[in-house]
C-alpha cells in the first residue's frame, strides 16, 4: 500500500479534475466547440478512472494479469458499443 499522503494527493487531484469538467460546461465551451470539449471531458474522466484503478484499487502493485482481466471486460464493452454504433452510422 502507498502512504496516506499519496492517497490524499490522489483524492485532491480527483476532486480538482471533477470540478474542471463541470467548469468546462459552465464556461460554455460545449456551445462553441462541442466535439473538442467532449474529447477533453472524456479524457479527464479516463484520467480519473486510471487514478482510482491504479492507486485506490492498487492495480499498480498487482501482477499485470489482473489488469488484463479488467482490460478484457473493457475491450468487450468497447467492441459492443463501437460495433453497434458503427452499424447505424
Amino acid at each position: 500500500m502507498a502512504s496516506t499522503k499519496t492517497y490524499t494527493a490522489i483524492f485532491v487531484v480527483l476532486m480538482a479534475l471533477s470540478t474542471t469538467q463541470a467548469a468546462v460546461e459552465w464556461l460554455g465551451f460545449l456551445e462553441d466547440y462541442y466535439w473538442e470539449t467532449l474529447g477533453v471531458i472524456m479524457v479527464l474522466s479516463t484520467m480519473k478512472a486510471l487514478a482510482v484503478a491504479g492507486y485506490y484499487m492498487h492495480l499498480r502493485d498487482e501482477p499485470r494479469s489482473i489488469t488484463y482481466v479488467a482490460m478484457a471486460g473493457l475491450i468487450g464493452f468497447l467492441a459492443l458499443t463501437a460495433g453497434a454504433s458503427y452499424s447505424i452510422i
Partner: protein
Amino acid sequence: MGDLPPRSSVKRWLVTTNHKDIGILYLLTSVFFLVVAGVLALLIRIQLLQSGGTILSDAGYNQVVTSHGFLMIFWFLSPFAFGFANYFVPLQIGADDLAFPRLNAMSYWLYLFSGVLVLGSFFQGATFMGGWTAYAPLNVPSYIPDFGQVGSFATILALIAFIGSVTIGSVNFLTTIYRMRAKGLRMRDIPLFSISILVTVWMMLFAFAAYLAALIILSSDHLLHTSFFALETGSGPEATDSGSLLWTHIFWFFGHPEVYIVFFPALGVLGEMVQTFSGRRLVGRKWFIIAMALVGIQSFIVWMHHMFLTAISLEIKTVMMVTTVAISLPFDLMVFSLIYTMIKGKIRWKTPFLFSLGALVIFIIGGITGVFLGAIVLDYSFRGTYWVVAHFHYVMASSAVILIGAVYYWFPKMTGKMYNEFLGKVHFAMAFIGFNLLYFPMFIVWETPRRIFHYNSGFTMWHQTATAGAFLFAASFLVMFYNLAKSLYSDRHVGESPWSYVASPEWAVSSPPPLENFPGKPSFASGELNFLDRAETDGGVEDAATDGGVEETLAPPEEHADHASWWPFLTASSVVLTGFGLAGLSVSHFVWPFLFAIPAFVAALGVHGARQDGFAQIHGIYMMLSFPLLALFFIFFHIGIGIGELASMSAYFWAALVGAVWGAYTLAGIGYESFEVPEPKMAEQWPFESVENTKLGMWTFIASDIIVFGAFIGAYIFTRIEYGWQEWWKLAKDPAAHTMAEQALEHHPVLPGLINTYLLLASSFTVVLALSAARRTEDYSIGPFSISNRSATVTFLGLTFGGAAFFLVNKGIEWVDLFVHQGWTFGVDVMSSTFYLTTGMHALHVIIGMLVMLFLIARAWTGAYVGEGEDASTIEYFGLYWHFVDIVWLFLFPLFYIL
C-alpha cells in the same frame, strides 16, 4: 456448519457444498429439464404432423416453441455440461474442491430455483411467447397479450436469476482453475475437458453479462414502462426501429458466444473420449487448445451475422461475414485434429466412442450448413426458415450427443459400476437414426417457415418423417435411463479405470472417488502429465509423479473443506417467491417489498452477528435500528400508497414481500459464513501467484460487471446516436414537442451530478483510509488523544456509509424534483428512459454496497479486521467493488449531466 451427513440422507443433498455432490445434483436436475424440454419438443412435432396444426392453440404453440428453446439451451445443455465440470474439473487439476464451495452450492440452487420460476410461469397466464431470441418489440408489454403479461415477465426474471447462477459459477471456476492446480500442473497440461471449461467460463463471464444488461433493461420496460426496446426514431420512410435493433445487438453479442458456451465443454470431452478410445494422444493438442482460445475471442466479433436482414450498414455486414468465415477456420483445425487422431490410433468401439463419432458427423453437417447462413446473400433466403432450425439443431444437439457419450464415459467413474455395453450401443443406434430422421428432412423442406405451423402441404410427408424420428430419438433415452438404473444396482464393479487407455488424472483415483478426492497430495512435478494406462494407475501414478517430497504423498488432506451449509439452499429459494410476486406487480407497488426487506436485513445482521461473533453493542444497535427504519418505510408507504390499501394487496405483493424479506434474512446469514476454503499451500497458480482467491474472484466479477454497465452505457450511446447525438438536448428544448423534457432540462443542471461525484470520490477515499487503519500496527494519536485502530476502522467505514447515504439523498432530491414536480417520468421519452435506468442501475450498486458496509461495520466493531493474525482483506475486496462503482460514476457524470 458441520460435517456432511451420509449420501442416503435427504439433508445431505440440501446442505452439501462438495463439488462431486453438486455435480450429481446438476446432472440429475438438468436431465429433468431435458425431459421437460423434450416433451415440449414432441408437442411441437405432433403439432407439425399436418400443416395448420393438430393439438395446440396458436398461443400454446408459441409458448411451447419458446420454452423448449429456453429450457434446452439454458436449463439443460449448459448445466448438464457443468454437472460434469463440477465433478471432474477439481479431479482433473488435482484440487480438493472448487475455490468457493458455498458459492458453488449457491450457483446450483439458483439454477434450480430459476428453473422452478420458469416452469411456474406456465401457470401465471402464459409463459413467454416471443421465441428464445425474444426479439423486440415482441418482448415488450405492448406487444404481449394481456393474459401473457405476468408469465412473460416471470420468464425474464427467471433468466436473470439463472444468469446470477452462471456468473457465480464462472467466477468460481476461473478462480479454481487458475489458483488450485496441483503442483507441477502447467496451464497447457490441464486435461482437455478442464481447458474447455476454462475457455467456456471466460466466454460465460462476459457474454452472460451483456445478456443480463439486456434483460434488466427489458425488465425496466416491463416494470417501469421505460421505452428502450419499443423505441422508433425518425418518422415516415426514414423511421428506424432503433429499439429492436438495440435488442438484437446486445442479444447476439451474447447469443453467438452462447453457441460455443454450449458446445465447448462437449468439445473438451470429445477430445478426451477420442484420445481414450483411439488409444493415443490428440494430434496437435497444443494447436487444438490455441484454436479453442482463438474461437473464444473471435466469438465476440461475429454477432451481426444474425442481423443481415436488419437496417445495419452493408459495410458492417461484410465485416461480420468475413469474421464469421474466419471463425470456421480454427474449427476446421480442431475437426481435422480429432479425425487424424482416430486415423492414427487403434479404435475401441465402445459406446462413448460411438457417440463421439456420431456427434462429430452431426457437428460437421451443422457446421457446413451454417456457413451458408453466414453468407449475406444466402441468408436473405434462408433466414427464418427450417434451414436455420435444422442447422442449429445439428450444432446444438451435437453437443448434447457428445455429453450423452460422456455419461457413458464417466458413469463407471462416478458410480463404480459398469453400464451395459449392448444397451449402450442400442441407445446410440436409436439416437443417431432418430436424430437424423428428425432433422435431416428439415433441410429438404427448408422452405417451411420457422416458428409457424403452417407450411406447404407438399411437405407433409417429410414433416411426418421428422415426427417419427423425434419419437425414436426420445425413446432412445428411455433405453439409457433403464440401462443406467439397472447398472447402478448391478454388481459389475470397476476399479480406477475401466478403459485400457486413459489420459487424465480422474482415472487414477478409486471409482467413485473418495470425498476428499485424493489419497495424498497430488503433484505433477515430474514435468509432464503422463498418459496413464491401467498398469500405471494401479501403482499410483500420483506417487510416482511427485518430486520426492514425502510430506506430499503421506500428509493427511489439508483442513477438511466439506462443511455443510443450509444458507445457499435457503437464500436461493427466496428467488421463487420474489420472482413470482415481482412478475405481477405494478410500477407503483413493486418497490415496497424490497424497501421492507431492508429493515429485515439490518435486524438479521444483528441476529446472525450476535450468534456468530458473540453479542456486541453493534448487534443490539442493528436490532433496535430496524424498528425505526421499518416505521420510516411505513410512513413512506402511507404517503405513497396508503396503509389502508394493505388489506387489498394482491397475492403477488405478499409473495414478493415474503420472498424479499426471506432473501434479506438469509443473505445476512450467508454473509457471516466464510466463502473460502483454506487455500492450498502448494499449488500451481500461474499467472495469479500473488493474488488471493477472493481477490481474483472479485476482479473477475468486476470484469463481468464492466460488461453489464458497458452494455447499459453502450445502449445509451447507441440510442443517442440513432436519435442524433447533438439533437438529444436540442430536441428536448423544443417546447412544443417536449414540454416536460424542456422543463426537466432547466432543473437538470450539472450541479447535482457534481455534488454526487464529490461524495462518491470522498467515500472511495475513506474506504482506503479504513483499510489503512485496519492494517496499522500502532494506534492513532493526536496530541493527548489516541484512537484505536478498531475505532478508526469503524469510523472510516461509517464515513463511507455516510458519503453513500448522502449520495442517495442528493439523487433522491434530484429524482423527486424531476419525477414529481416536472412530470419527467421513466417513460416520457428516450432521454428520461436512459437517464433514470442507467443512473438507477448505478444507484442500485451503491445500495448493495451500503448493505455490505453495514455488515463490515458490524464485523469491524467486534474487532474482526484489526490486530495480529486478523485479516483486513475483506475490507480490501469490498473496496475494489466500491472503487469500481465510483469509476462507473466518473463516466456517468459527464455522459448524463454534461455532454
